[in-house]
């Protein structure tokens, strides 16, 4: 298993451009998450999904959109990029949410700079 994979690893955008961050997992996990991590900070949840066709907002959803058409893929779309979206983006997945099974598996991250 490759686990959770993310592309691209790095990207520089100009203000107002759009892009899609890709996330794929091959563990057949139902739950998937997008986080952003600003320098010196912890992770903040952007969006999450509990299964194909179902998504919900996290703590900081403004400026982003997601879709979940398959179990494997959970792309994150940035529309009209702004400097405040400069961050490292992590995708994570989880098999199921029960006591004793909260461990989320993280992808390697995408470092995005908006100039």
């Amino acid at each position, binding site marked *: 298993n490759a686990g959770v994979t993310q592309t691209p690893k790095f990207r520089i955008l100009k203000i107002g451009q759009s892009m899609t961050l890709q996330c794929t997992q091959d563990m057949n996990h139902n739950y998937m998450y997008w986080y952003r991590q600003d320098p*010196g900070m912890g992770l903040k949840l952007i969006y999450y999904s509990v299964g194909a066709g179902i998504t919900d907002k996290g703590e900081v959803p403004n400026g982003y959109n997601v879709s979940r058409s398959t179990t494997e893929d959970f792309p994150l779309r940035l529309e009209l990029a702004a400097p405040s979206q400069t961050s490292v983006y*992590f995708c994570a997945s989880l098999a199921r949410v029960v006591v004793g099974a909260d461990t989320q598996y993280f992808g390697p991250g995408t470092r995005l700079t908006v100039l």
Partner: protein
Amino acid sequence: EDKVVQSPLSLVVHEGDTVTLNCSYEVTNFRSLLWYKQEKKAPTFLFMLTSSGIEKKSGRLSSILDKKELFSILNITATQTGDSAIYLCAVGGGAQKLVFGQGTRLTINP
């Protein structure tokens, strides 16, 4: 609003020292508390705690949870330079989400 607070935010010690990292939380419907280690890339899982007073241990690292006082500690004994990292505490609360603290940046000097 769910909240996780870690302290200290930054810690510098010498190799061989013992360190204690703190995590306090306020979340609805607590399920579990997790510790992650983050070096230059993605967080990697260390421990998950769900019950009070039970110590989880892995080599020189150990962690304990106090559900009554709503906090957890992560201890690292005989620290090594390879322990230098950001240590993240996360709590599973309402819905299917984890709430992360801001992390403790630990630096071990030789």
